[in-house]
């Protein structure tokens, strides 16, 4: 039904995947406004390209690939840097982000929020791979398809992202982590 262009059926897909696509875009841009623009663009592009979707393929992987490409294109158009820890400049960006958090102090010590805040401190590459793996229910192969990487490279990136996340949590949420671990 969806593939034949049925709008109500497509709306059901939008409802189902909107949070994830928005989160992916948000992890890439760190701006709700840009993320919403990208996410909307993703769903329009996906609708227009439904004829290219292969039967039997995983819809989420196909959709997230569109999301990834649209996000990167959006950043290039806006000439925003794709934050990556492999790039020298990003260290400064991340450090600034961290100092903001330090200054503001985290009021809500909720565990989910704490982890989300720690993820927000990561580079876009790290945050994306973690989001795809844990929330997108994608395998390493599928993440490889989305990001245009070999599964082994995804595995390495995921490992490094988890390590960096752990470091952030230990550095900025040490007390919360201790409390949660004791529980």
């Amino acid at each position, binding site marked *: 039904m969806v593939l034949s*262009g049925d*709008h109500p059926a*497509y*709306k059901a897909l*939008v*409802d189902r995947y*909107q*949070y*994830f696509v*928005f*989160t992916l875009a*948000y992890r890439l841009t760190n701006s*709700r406004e840009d*993320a*919403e623009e990208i*996410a*909307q663009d993703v*769903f*329009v592009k996906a*609708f*227009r*390209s*439904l*004829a*290219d979707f292969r039967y039997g393929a995983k819809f989420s992987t196909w959709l997230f690939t569109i999301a990834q490409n649209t996000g990167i294109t959006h950043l290039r158009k806006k000439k925003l840097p794709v934050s990556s820890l492999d790039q020298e400049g990003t260290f400064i960006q991340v450090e600034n982000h961290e100092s903001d958090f330090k200054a503001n102090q985290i009021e809500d010590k909720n*565990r*989910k929020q704490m*982890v*989300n805040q720690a*993820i927000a401190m990561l580079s876009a590459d790290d945050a994306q791979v*973690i989001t795809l793996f*844990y*929330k997108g229910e994608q395998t*390493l192969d599928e993440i490889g398809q989305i990001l245009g990487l070999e599964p082994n490279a995804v*595995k390495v990136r995921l*490992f490094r992202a*988890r*390590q960096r*996340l*752990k470091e952030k*949590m230990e550095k900025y949420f040490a007390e919360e982590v201790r409390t*949660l*671990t004791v529980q």
Partner: protein
Amino acid sequence: MEPDKNRTSLLWDYLDGNLSEKERLAVETLLRTDSSAQKEFDAILDMNVWLKETELEQPSMRFSKNVMEEVAKYSIAPTTKSYVNKKIIFSIAAFFILIISGTLIYMFTQIDYSAAPSGALSVELPKIEIDWKKWINSTYVQVFLMADIVFGLMLLDRYLSKKKKAGLQ
């Protein structure tokens, strides 16, 4: 003390189910015998649970409505495959085959078989003799170039009229 990176990586792989049977058993033995490894694995387990429990960001309330309003303006585009005209592919292939065949024919007719060392080739090969001067002369070249220019102008005209039509629509 900084935990061993290889061990950490191995523990994550164990948790993700990326290890072979042999490696899996080795990790299980390590966890039973090494308390520091067990402690590190517990921390990894905690983090894994926390990561699974994270919540997704929420777009604005009107998001899906905005999307559907935008989607309503479009229809599904034809498949990418249909954009590719098979005639163009065949024409390109024919062009290259023609060029390659022409080059080979020209090459073979230029070989002087009598120059081969005696006894090396006992079979008498048929002599291909083409008088290229008859075919490649200024008249034929000029005709060929003129035909190319006319063909090019026809294509340009077709392209421009198509563009004009698209602009008017």
